């Protein structure tokens, strides 16, 4: 979707100051949102999780602090998958506790990896090789995609083959893994931004096979 999250190239925002001493979590609720999400064995993929954030209404997206977006997404996905109900969230006191089961996997370093599906690479061939000139298709899918608007219709050069990965556009929508090669594509900044850019500058974007076609 051409969502508000697709911010690359937008003007008018003001940079936040860098604070080398800021805490990871400014408020206790942020800690709870982060920790509970990672502690959960979520039945959805990281792609659907990102799509959940993207569908926050634009005017709210821009005013929400970072972890408020997570909170919104977590609520929506838990409800969608039937793990909790809106009524339960509205009246948590009234929810009865079930007897605790055996504790799960507590290796924090591994919790996140469960959401990233390792693709089945069997027989998946690359359409492009390092050095190929490619054109990013000008597609505007209604669902999740990881081809930002600012590269669509623009030409670049394949700089590295990043291997085979699950395709976010289908995986986020429950439409299958569709494993395929992903490439680091190098764009001249002037190809993306015209005269505004310094001709020396380059932007590297990781793009999936399905986003690309040979440059004409």
């Amino acid at each position: 979707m051409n969502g508000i999250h697709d911010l690359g190239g937008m003007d008018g925002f003001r940079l936040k100051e860098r604070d080398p001493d800021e805490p990871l979590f400014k408020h206790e609720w942020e800690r709870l949102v982060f920790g509970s999400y990672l502690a959960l064995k979520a039945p959805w993929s990281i792609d659907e999780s990102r799509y959940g954030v993207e569908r926050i209404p634009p005017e709210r997206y821009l005013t929400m602090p970072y972890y408020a977006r997570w909170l919104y997404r977590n609520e929506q996905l838990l409800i969608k998958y039937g793990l909790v109900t809106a009524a339960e969230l509205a009246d948590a006191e009234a929810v009865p506790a079930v007897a605790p089961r055996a504790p799960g996997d507590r290796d924090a370093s591994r919790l996140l990896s469960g959401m990233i599906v390792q693709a089945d690479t069997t027989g998946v061939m690359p359409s492009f090789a390092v050095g190929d000139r490619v054109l990013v298709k000008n597609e505007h899918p209604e669902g999740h995609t990881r081809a930002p608007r600012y590269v669509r219709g623009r030409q670049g050069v394949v700089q590295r083959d990043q291997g085979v990965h699950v395709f976010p556009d289908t995986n986020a929508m429950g439409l299958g893994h569709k494993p395929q090669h992903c490439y680091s594509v190098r764009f001249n900044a002037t190809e993306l931004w015209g005269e505004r850019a310094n001709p020396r500058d380059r932007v590297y974007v990781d793009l999936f096979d399905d986003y690309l076609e040979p440059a004409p």
Partner: protein
Amino acid sequence: MDDKKVSRREFLAKTSAAASVTAGATHVHSHEAADDVQSEYSLRARALVSVLTKKNLIDPATLDQVVDYYETKVGPHIGARLVARSWLDPDFKDRLVADAGAAAAELGISGTLSSEFRAVANEPGVHNLVVCTLCSCYPWPLLGLPPTWYKDTAYRAKAVIDPRGVLREFGLTLDDDVEVRVWDSTAEVRYMVIPERPDHTNGLSEEALAALVTRDAMIGAERVPEPVQR
């Protein structure tokens, strides 16, 4: 209509001055700061954790361990070790650039199996900057959780179209003939920058070098500062 020529720079300076004069008077609401908003988030977060716990969907001990892991175990000190080692050992640097996850594993750093990691090296005439325009992708196992400015809309918007302006605001003015390489983390590959080793660091140990390396330098937002003279 006055057709007098004003330079674009002058014009922009004038109008932004006017904007800042009335910023106080005209700003209706600052959401993030509002206490009632924070308390609404707090209520919802507590309700969420309570329901998940009662329904046995999370173990509260796991929640604590996860938070503790990111607050105390993982952080920029890991990336700093990799950078310091790469400054001392050119072969290691080559391996780090080729496959940062594998190079990190050599030093016993874990958590790098699920994604691919790339280290991109600054050098004379080349400056790298990492961003995630679509969300907030960041090399957690190497640098910990990202800082607020990195996740903020403004950085995500500007880094790809005006990296030099971003760096200037951050205090780093690059010469026009430096090549800026911006890395937009749009897939499951995560990037960190190997900053240039500062001058006057000859003879420093790997540990002492690592202590110089800042988080923001490993994103490309600044240079590693010279060691403080004693």
